């Protein structure tokens, strides 16, 4: 069996694009940094207790009282660990990565729902992305964007794209064909049908996708601590390397609290829109 050097080809490609796309990469890097710092600033501007109350209010708005009480107490606990800033940094990265993942994934999902060719092409790609170990995403990200915040956001966003594409496509395909036929029969334009009939009716499924994207982003953000991103990832990674059991547990708990909060709030969005 001759040695097929796929790894070498990929490396060549990455090298080539690094040289050719330098300017674009710098622009992306600047934009991501600015975006994340902006969100971070917003989250850290009020004192911890006020921000915790705001997050609890968000939970109350879309969920029952219990979730709101949990949110308030849990975030105050995080503050008492001294992990408030790290948690908000992580939240900022998750939010920005989610916006990027949805911004790329949802249009691709819409396109896949409209074209069988696109759907058939995209599906194995998504399968591939979802089976690839999470760490692998870090390698090209680090190569293109160095270490720190930016590769973490990029790797997280790319890692979180698949559910946005899949569930958008699924949601649109699941819309009753008679509904689409009815809109067609009254002379609506395909984009009007997408906007007024297919997307609204697909919304619960699409929101389930958004929920998945956020949870995946959160799971990736911790791994992104390996490439020097600040936030809870960094806390957990340094605790692991120093065999600091107490610090590792508290960091892990903060991640879990953030996960529960994000899951409950975004899962509710899909349901309340029925």
């Amino acid at each position: 069996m001759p040695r097929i050097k796929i790894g070498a080809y990929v490396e060549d490609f990455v090298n080539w694009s690094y040289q050719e796309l330098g300017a674009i990469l710098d622009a992306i890097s600047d934009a991501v940094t600015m975006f994340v710092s902006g969100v971070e600033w917003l989250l850290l501007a009020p004192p911890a207790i006020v921000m915790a109350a705001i997050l609890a209010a968000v939970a109350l708005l879309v969920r029952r009282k219990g979730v709101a009480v949990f949110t308030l107490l849990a975030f105050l606990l995080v503050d008492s660990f001294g992990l408030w800033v790290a948690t908000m940094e992580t939240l900022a990265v998750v939010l920005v990565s989610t916006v990027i993942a949805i911004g790329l994934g949802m249009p691709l999902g819409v396109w896949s729902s409209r074209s069988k060719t696109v759907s058939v092409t995209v599906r194995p790609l998504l399968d591939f992305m979802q089976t690839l170990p999470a760490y692998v995403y870090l390698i090209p990200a680090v190569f293109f964007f160095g270490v720190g915040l930016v590769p973490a956001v990029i790797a997280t966003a790319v890692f979180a794209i698949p559910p946005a594409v899949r569930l958008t496509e699924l949601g649109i395909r699941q819309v009753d064909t008679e509904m689409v036929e009815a809109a067609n029969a009254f002379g609506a334009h395909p984009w009007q049908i997408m906007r007024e009939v297919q997307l609204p009716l697909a919304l619960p499924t699409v929101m389930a996708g958004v929920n998945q994207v956020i949870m995946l982003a959160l799971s990736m953000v911790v791994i992104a601590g390996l490439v020097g991103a600040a936030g809870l990832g960094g806390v957990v990674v340094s605790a692991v390397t120093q065999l600091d059991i107490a610090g590792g547990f508290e960091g892990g708990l903060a991640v879990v609290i953030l996960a529960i909060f994000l899951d409950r709030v975004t899962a509710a969005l899909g349901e309340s829109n029925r």
Partner: protein
Amino acid sequence: MIKAEHLFKVFGARSDRAMALLEEGHSKQEILAQTQCTVAVRGVSFAISPGELFVIMGLSGSGKSTVIRLLNRLIEPTSGTVRVQGRDIGKLTDQELRELRNQKLSMVFQHFAIFPHRTVRENVGYGLHVRSVQESVLEERTEWALDSVGLGGWGEARPSELSGGMKQRVGLARALATDAEVMLMDEPFSALDPLIRRDMQDLLIRLHRDLGRTIVFVTHDLNEAMRIGERIMLMKDGELVQLGTGAEILSCPADDYVSNFIADVDRARVLVARDLMLMPPAIARVHDDAGEVLERLESSGADASYVLEQGRVVGVTSRKLLDPAVRAGATKLDYDLINTEFRATGPDTLLIALCPLVNAQRYPLAIVDGERRLLGTVSSEAVLEAIANRASEGEHVCPGSRSEPMSRTS
């Protein structure tokens, strides 16, 4: 209004090959086995006049739902043309097609297809919303449409609050609101309870009469087809089997398939006097020679004859009355030989209403027009035969084995 010519629709990737096999006369099953293509519609032609209520009838898989979707190009025909008001819709651009659907052809769906995320008013106004009409016009039209279907005041309701029958009223109102001249209805009442279905049929018949729209109505229920349809197109395996009025199909079924099909129809509510009446074997006029009238009766084998005066029916005479009178020397058919008490009815009387009338007298029932001119007679035997589900053979003239589908033009 709508003219369809030689419509074919083959579903599947290898439709070219399937069309070639079709031309060689292969059956639907053979083509499915050879090409994995489904022949849904096979060489169907018909024409629908303005204001007609045209029913497409067939069992599931007969291609009826495909045919109605070919009329507004929700499905592209594999070959053949559809003209709406003379325009070949196959040649329209996407934009023109959308305008045509919006302005000329509205549609009502089997499972209502009411948008659950819009209010009843927003649903009813959807066609106008697509047309971007002024808000005030939209409001006025939707209000009118809701009133027409008996849903006035329900505009702000959510579809989830409505029953099935009410949802389909919304579907009907949505089709009415656009003022489209043609309404395509794909099994609109199949998903409803029988009682509600009857109400909806009555509503449709009333709306058709009041608004005069052209309606193409798809159903698998022959009784429904007979009840509402002016003309019925019967389909089987994608082919047109028979096209004609309900009475034509009942009295002259094109083949065994149709005969079996109509076996269950309640003929008493479909057939009318016109379908059963025959020309009387003998007719007499007041002041005719009494002896001659008697001879005519005897030679034709009839017992009685209606008597006309200036073209109008005035009474009936019979051998029983004439025989003794002629022997006694009567020469003229005068009023003392005419029984002026007889039953007559109009040509549109339903068979079910004819039964008591024919049994009330010994001679055939007179069928007369508004000016009491004799159109024909219906005997009690004819009524019995019709109810017993048999066309009286040889006496009705069936035009060919199939009626000509192109006999009416739009």
